[in-house]
Structure formats: structure tokens, C-alpha cells
């Protein structure tokens, strides 16, 4: 167990190092920030001064080493646009994205798991067929369109919910949160639902597939032959087998919720990281882009690590393999 964790740690470090190279080369390719940073009317001397200030006159390998050095100190440089440390800028936006992602994942789990279980247990019922058809819609409707429709219906036509922003926030643990105020919660509802729709369908279909895979197994029949109550068969025998793939997907999807909620955040003008990164890409704000990408790499590596550990808890067969 311990050796496998150490092995995974080394793999994680390798992934992060590889990503620093890819990210660094990537942002160097997408455009020259100097063109944006400097007033076109500026003279040559001023231009050279700015380039030197940002270290852009150095050879590329030296720039990379400087970048790595900064990385180890948690310093991604100052944002070209805001003139403040890029990492701080992102961390400031993190709570907004985090609460949106957690709420969306919560909705997806609370709705997707029971419905998937139901559709898997009673596949012939009309309600199950409706659920499955609905999940296809949830799967295939583009997020931006659903977001616009939600605004159209619930904000414009019905006037129930606000269209944009976080609403009033409340401080908790030194961070501003929307979900702690009633008005903030109202602001949270539409974007969270929009973000959750796809994930709900995904978890629902995965759960149903899992149920249908586990139910015909001999060990389920054997449990019935033992006289075990149906509630325990579903709740323990089926559920535990089912959770193995679901946990994997939940972990990965949580990462993607945080990293790629860009569309939803743009539509609902949610001041999260997604909105920040889109703005930064438009303005070629290199330090922010780099800091964001590196944070996401670490997030995914960390999530995968956690999933692996959950996996060994859920599936005893994996545990033995790790020992060998």
C-alpha cells in the first residue's frame, strides 16, 4: 500500500514537470504579449525597457528556468493587466468557482444516483424510459443554449431568479461565499443547475449501466438464495459494486467542473476562475494563464490521487494487486 502510494507520488511529480514544459511552450506560441502590453506609439527605448522588465529578452531556456524558479516559490509573476500577482488573482476567484462546482456536483449526485438506480432496477417501466430519454437531452443539449434558455424562462419571463453575478456574499473562514445568504443562494441556483445538467445525465446513465451489469450476477442471486432482504441486496451488494466506476467519474468530473465551467460562468457573469481565464486569454495575460493551467494540472493530479485511494478502499481486488 505504502509503496504504491510513493510510486504514484513520483508519477504525479513527473506529470507536473512534463506539464510545465507543455504550458511554457504553449503560452510562448500563442502570441507575443509585448504587442498588447506596449502602447503602439511608444518609442524603441521604452519598448526595450518593458521587454527587459518582463525578462522577455532572455533566451527561451533561461526564461523556462526563471519560470520554474518562480513556480517553486508559488510566484507566477504579476498579471500584465491587473499588475498584481497572478496566483493571488486566481485564488481570489477560487471560492466562487468552488461553490458553483460543489453545488453542481451535489445536484448531479442527489438527482443522478437515485434516478439511475431506479431506471436500472425497473428498466421496463414507462417512468424509467422517460428518465433515460431525458438524460439523452441532458447529455446532448449544449450548455450555452440551456443557460440562455434558463435565463429566458426563469429570469426574463417568470422573473423568479436573477440573471447574473453572485449576489451578496458572506464571509466565512476569511472567504466570501454566496451560498450563505438567501439572495446569494438565489443567484447560485441557475448557474449551478446549468452546470449540473450534463453531470446529472452522466452519473444517471453510469449508475443505470452499473445496476444492469451487477443485477444478473450470480452473487446477487446467491444473496437472494440466502434470504437476504431486497433492501440490503440493493443497498449493499449492488451499491458497493456500482460505486467503483461512479467514484472514478465523480472525481474526474469534479475536476472538469472547476476547470471548465467557463461557458456557464460567462453566461451568468459568475465572477469565478473560468471568467478570469477567458478574459486573460483574450488579453494574452500570460502569467494568469500559466498560473491557471498549472493550478489545474495540480488539481487533476491531486484528484486522481484521491480517486486511486478511494478505489483501493472500494475494490479489495485492487488492494492485493498493489501489494504484489
Amino acid at each position, binding site marked *: 500500500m505504502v509503496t504504491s502510494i510513493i510510486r504514484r507520488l513520483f508519477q504525479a511529480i513527473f506529470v507536473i514537470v512534463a506539464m510545465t514544459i507543455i504550458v511554457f511552450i504553449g503560452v510562448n506560441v500563442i502570441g507575443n504579449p509585448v504587442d498588447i502590453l506596449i502602447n503602439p506609439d511608444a518609442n524603441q527605448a521604452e519598448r526595450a525597457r518593458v521587454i527587459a522588465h518582463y525578462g522577455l529578452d532572455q533566451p527561451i531556456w533561461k526564461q523556462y528556468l526563471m519560470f520554474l524558479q518562480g513556480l517553486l516559490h508559488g510566484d507566477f509573476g504579476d498579471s500584465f493587466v491587473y499588475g498584481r500577482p497572478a496566483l493571488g488573482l486566481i485564488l481570489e476567484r477560487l471560492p466562487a468557482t468552488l461553490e458553483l462546482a460543489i453545488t453542481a456536483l451535489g445536484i448531479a449526485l442527489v438527482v443522478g444516483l437515485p434516478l439511475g438506480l431506479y431506471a436500472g432496477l425497473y428498466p421496463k417501466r414507462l417512468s424509467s424510459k422517460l428518465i433515460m430519454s431525458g438524460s439523452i437531452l441532458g447529455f446532448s443539449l449544449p450548455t450555452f443554449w440551456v443557460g440562455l434558455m434558463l435565463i429566458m424562462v426563469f429570469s426574463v419571463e417568470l422573473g423568479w431568479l436573477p440573471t447574473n453575478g453572485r449576489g451578496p456574499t458572506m464571509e466565512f473562514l476569511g472567504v466570501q461565499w454566496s451560498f450563505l445568504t438567501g439572495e446569494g443562494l438565489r443567484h447560485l441556483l441557475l448557474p449551478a443547475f446549468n452546470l449540473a445538467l450534463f453531470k446529472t445525465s452522466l452519473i444517471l446513465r453510469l449508475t443505470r449501466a452499473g445496476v444492469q451489469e451487477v443485477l444478473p450476477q*450470480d452473487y446477487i442471486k446467491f444473496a437472494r*438464495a440466502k*434470504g437476504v432482504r431486497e433492501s440490503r441486496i440493493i443497498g449493499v*451488494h449492488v451499491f458497493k459494486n456500482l460505486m467503483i466506476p461512479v467514484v472514478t467519474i465523480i472525481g474526474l468530473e469534479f475536476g472538469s467542473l472547476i476547470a471548465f465551467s467557463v461557458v456557464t460562468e460567462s453566461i451568468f457573469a459568475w465572477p469565478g476562475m473560468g471568467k478570469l481565464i477567458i478574459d486573460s486569454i483574450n488579453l494574452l495575460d500570460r502569467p494568469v494563464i500559466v498560473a491557471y493551467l498549472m493550478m489545474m494540472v495540480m488539481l487533476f493530479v491531486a484528484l486522481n490521487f484521491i480517486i486511486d485511494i478511494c478505489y483501493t478502499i472500494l475494490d*479489495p*481486488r485492487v488492494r492485493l494487486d498493489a501489494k504484489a
Partner: protein
Amino acid sequence: MSALLQVSNLVTEFGGGRGRSGLKAVNDVSFSVDRGKVLGLVGESGSGKTVTGFSILRLLERPGRITGGRILFDGTDIANCSEEEMRNLRGKRIAMVFQDPMMTLNPVLTIGTQMVEAVQAHDKVSKDVARQRSRDALGLVGIPSPEERLAAYPHQFSGGMRQRVAIAIALLHQPDLIIADEPTTALDVTIQSQIIYEFQRLAEESNTAVIWITHDLAIVSRLADDIAVMYAGRLVETGPVGEVLTDPRHPYTAGLIASVPSQNRRGEPLHQIRGMTPAINRLPQGCSFRTRCDRATEGCLIMPDLIPEEDRAFRCIHPVMKEVA
């Protein structure tokens, strides 16, 4: 005294419904088992033996269902039992051991969990008591250091050990009837012998009735008191093991017996029954065995009834008779 289990004219169909008739996997099957007796239910793959077993426990999976006949267990018609009453029978009074030990235990639960839940499904006892009983049951089937084994997962056991665990689970409540569906097929011969011995002892000492489903006549001859031979969903011959195996009446039974390899016929080619078991949806008219039988005549175009003869019965109008020397 009436038999513990009395199956009469059982019909189990798959598919069908709404006026259409389904495929009869079990067709007009009758037999009975007394306490302390072992019935060998013999037949080829697809002859309906396993479906018969599941019918008794009412554990058929859709689209399978019982459409005819009666199953009396200790005087109660199981068709009249509620789902909860059935649950109380399963594991408690009728236990079953499945064919493939690699598949019968849940891979993500420990042996202990799976045994304790089997105890607690029927008896309101504490976890400690249930664990103690599980430990004893594991010891009974010859699993060394049962205490440690309770904490293990199925994949840490070999096939033979898993089947012992399954048998230990079946023994937990000292059931009146155990349905053993080819429990030794996946095991090697030495373990097979041990398990057969365990069942024999069980039938004698605890007065448990056993239905041993198998295609292996050698096992039946060692273990069973009575034999019921199935072919294409029907019983073709029943009777005491000694009589049926030494002096079969039905040509199919005779063919099966002749196909068992023997020391005495070393060097001779092994007997085969020609042809193959017909698919259940394409049975020939009349006697199902007609197309593979050397004795078939036009009279076989009509399905013969079971013909009783003393305490045995066979379904053939041209029975094999041992020539009286």
C-alpha cells in the same frame, strides 16, 4: 409420512405470455425427496435441471416463470407464499449451492460480511453471535483458521475454498433441504470427494434432504438414493439409484451409462449418443429423444407417458430390458 419436497407436474416457461405459449424449459416434471435422502437430478446441459432448482426457490429470472404444476414443501404450496414468506424459506429451510464458486460470492464484500448477513437475514442475533456461527460453519467444511478467513475477500480464496464457503453458508441455518447445483464440477477430484463426503454425512446425521443436480453419473452412483433423469425439459426415468443405473429402462439413460468411461472396457472406443440435444424451441414431435434413438418407431411420434414399474418409472414405449441370462 409425506415427503419433505413434493414436485408435481412442474412446468416452467421462458418468454411467451399474452396468449402465446413460451418455451418450456421444464415440462411436466414430478419427483419427491424425503428427509435424509439424496436425489440425483441428472441430465445434459440445457435439460432443465438448474431451472428446476431455481423454480423450487422461486428465484427464476424474467422472463422465466412457473406456469403449471405444484411444489409442496413440507406441506406448503410455495406458489401461495408471499415474497416475504419465500424469503424466510430461502437460506433458512431451503438452501442452494451454485455451480460456479468463482461467481457466487460478492467480490467487494468480505467472507465475514456475507456470512453474517446470511445469519442475520433470519435470526435476530448480535453480530458477534453471527460471527461465531459463521466461524463454526467454516470449520465444519474444513477451512483452516476460520477466524482470519472471515476477514478475507473472495479473490483471496481458491475455487475449491470458495465452494466450501458457499456450502458453509448453505449450512448456517441447518436447512431441511439443500439444492446443490453441480457444486463439484469446477473443483478438482480430491476436493470433489471431500465435499461429496460432507454432503453424505449431512444427509445421514442432520436428516437433511439433498437434491444433487449433476451430469456426472459417477457422483450420483456414490451419493444419491434416488435418481431422476431429465432430457429436454422432461423426466425420462426415475427410480432408486441402484436399479436405474444397473438396469436402465430408457434408451437415453442406457446411453448415458454406456458413455461413462470404465476400467473394464479399456481400449474400446467410448460409447456416444449420436446427434446432439435438440434446441428447446425445435423439439421433434412426440418423444424428444426419438431422433437420436436406435429403437424409435412410428409409435414414438406420440409423446409417451411415464410408465410406472414398481418404485420406478420411465417414459418410453420401447424400454431397454436386461436380458435375463
